[in-house]
């Protein structure tokens, strides 16, 4: 009996096992939920862009007109500043020394004027007397002529001495201006965003790789939105937009259109590498962040969706 039923029973087990294998094998592994939900745009039709937060003055890299060692930094990151406020000062001891030298040179030349003037007065006096004596034929004509020339020389010397005073004053002023330039001042009202210069460091005049100091007006903050040039035609000036903070889709803010950057620029991919690579060309649109209570920082990236109702 067992032998008779063995094949069919084996077959039934076989089919059962096969079905079990099929069911067990077809179980799909459920996907891990995303760590953060991606942001979802509120518009039906929209252009997406990646935005970077900046100040409304744009971020100003402060430079210095003269190179030199920094002797004093007046502000720190976050300091609110007004136009004309001092930011930092370069070492000016050499200028101060030069000023003293030049001031004493000025005094010297002023004294020289006095000497010249006295000499001239003396010679003029002698000339008057010589004329009288010459009329009396006490001295020769030749002697009188000499006296006359001496007066002319003394007059010229006085003029020279006066000119030297003016020049010495100009030197003093030059040094004073240079002293003023050793103090770097803020060109705008705003906030210090970044300080990369410290007392004792050498500040180079000209464009530096890292700006010495970044300042800008952070109220309100702007977002510079990169939009692929292929999507540029879809944008309207003044179109509303929404920005999402990366990392939490719940944090979002409406944006107000400010302007288009009229010049299309090559986009740099943010690889963090020392050499940035050019990827594609983008239209940049400037929006200002409307929400005042949003905790957002200049330089932060945001996902931006611009309404493109066709």
């Amino acid at each position: 009996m067992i032998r008779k039923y063995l094949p069919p029973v084996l077959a039934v087990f076989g089919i059962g096992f096969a079905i079990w294998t099929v069911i067990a094998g077809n179980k799909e592994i459920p996907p891990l939920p995303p760590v953060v939900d991606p942001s979802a745009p509120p518009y039906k039709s929209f252009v997406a862009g990646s935005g970077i937060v900046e100040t409304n003055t744009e971020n100003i890299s402060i430079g210095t007109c003269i190179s030199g060692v920094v002797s004093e930094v007046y502000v720190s990151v976050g300091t609110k500043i007004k136009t004309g406020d001092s930011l930092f000062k370069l070492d000016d001891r050499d200028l101060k020394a030069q000023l003293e030298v030049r001031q004493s040179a000025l005094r010297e030349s002023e004294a020289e004027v006095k000497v010249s003037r006295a000499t001239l007065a003396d010679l003029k006096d002698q000339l008057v007397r010589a004329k009288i004596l010459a009329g009396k034929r006490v001295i020769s004509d030749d002697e009188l002529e000499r006296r006359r020339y001496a007066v002319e020389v003394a007059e010229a010397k006085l003029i020279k001495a006066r000119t030297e005073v003016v020049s010495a004053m100009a030197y003093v002023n030059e040094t004073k201006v240079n002293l003023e330039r050793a103090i770097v001042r803020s060109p705008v009202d705003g906030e210090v965003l970044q300080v990369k210069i410290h007392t004792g460091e050498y500040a180079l005049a000209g464009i530096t790789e890292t700006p010495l100091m970044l300042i800008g007006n952070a109220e309100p903050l702007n977002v510079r939105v990169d939009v692929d040039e292929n999507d540029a035609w879809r944008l309207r000036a003044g179109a509303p937009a929404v920005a999402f903070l990366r990392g939490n889709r719940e944090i979002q803010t409406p944006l107000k259109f400010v302007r288009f950057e009229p010049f299309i620029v090559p986009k740099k991919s943010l690889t963090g590498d020392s050499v940035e690579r050019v990827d594609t060309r983008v239209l940049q649109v400037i929006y200002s962040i409307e929400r005042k209570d949003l905790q957002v920082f200049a330089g932060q990236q945001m996902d931006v969706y611009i309404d493109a109702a066709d």
Partner: protein
Amino acid sequence: MNFIALKMLIGDRAKYLGIIFGLAFASLLITQQMAIFLGLMTRTYGFLTDTPQPDIWVVDPKVQYIDDLKPLRETDVLRVRGVEGVAWAVRLYKGLLKARLPNGTFQNCIVVGLDDETLIGGPPVILEGELSNLRHNDAIIVDNVGADGKLANVTPDGRRIPLRIGDTMELNDHRAIVAGICRVTRTFQSQPVVYTTYSRATVFAPRERKLMSFVLVKANPGYDLSELCQRIRKTTGLAAYTKDEIKTITVRYYMKYTGIPVNFGITVILGFIVGVAIAGQTFYNFTQDNIRYFGTLKAMGASDFMLLKMVLLQAAMVGGIGYGMGVGAASTFSFLSGRTELSFCMPWQLLVASAVAIALICIISSFLSMWRIVKLEPAIVFKT
């Protein structure tokens, strides 16, 4: 009559078992070979299986299959985001990078760079650590097979120390710290898989102008996926495929440009022919041996229809048993090899396909027998 047919069949034990084993062998061969074939084919898109979150994959229009990496421009993800019906779109980097192991050897790894913000496209199962560990500095997540195998540190005395959380390795001259161990579907080339964030992957990757391999898209509910693909294609000029479509083109690529399907096809056909030969011949012999009794039944008034039904029932019986034993054996095979490099894939369609094959074998086998019986003159019963 059914009863008589079955008793006749089982009564001839040698032939009964012979036919069954012939059919079981054919069924085993067909099922097992097709399962391995399908397994291999599913491995070609194992990466897609592991990344089930997106509905649509956006790639370069020239991409022929999923491992055919033709990077896109960075802003394409923004353009795709701007298409109506797209709920979200994130970028994904995939590339083959060289890892240097502590013992100095090199190993090619598949590096997957996930969108920094959402980490969408991560591995399906994390065994140790967490996906969000990728936010740590220089963090990577390594698949367990790679960590225990190809990426393991082999000491000079031959011991294999698996890669664990906290270990460092070198990816294309950059330092990387293991922050998790995951499990992924085995890939076609069986390279280790390393997950990291997109921006870190671009640091690891060799210098190229474009790096983004895919844009993963989730559709808004209520949007037809193929329509959305069309729209993405039209708006961006990129190729957009639903998950099933890209699986199909991947499999089709491998079918078309590799010899794999031909190889397996030959084996399956061989199994089929062996089945027809063994089972068909034995079955015909069985009918031939019993022709006197079929004649007797025919003389006693059994119609051709009844006799054909008997033959078909016999064929169905051996077919069913042979099929059952065959697929059972194939399943056992797959069960036993579950933890090895062999790939098995048994969808229900495969069971149906091998059932159809066995049914065909039975029909072909019984056809000769049926012909013999229809032609049979009942008068032979009086011949000695």
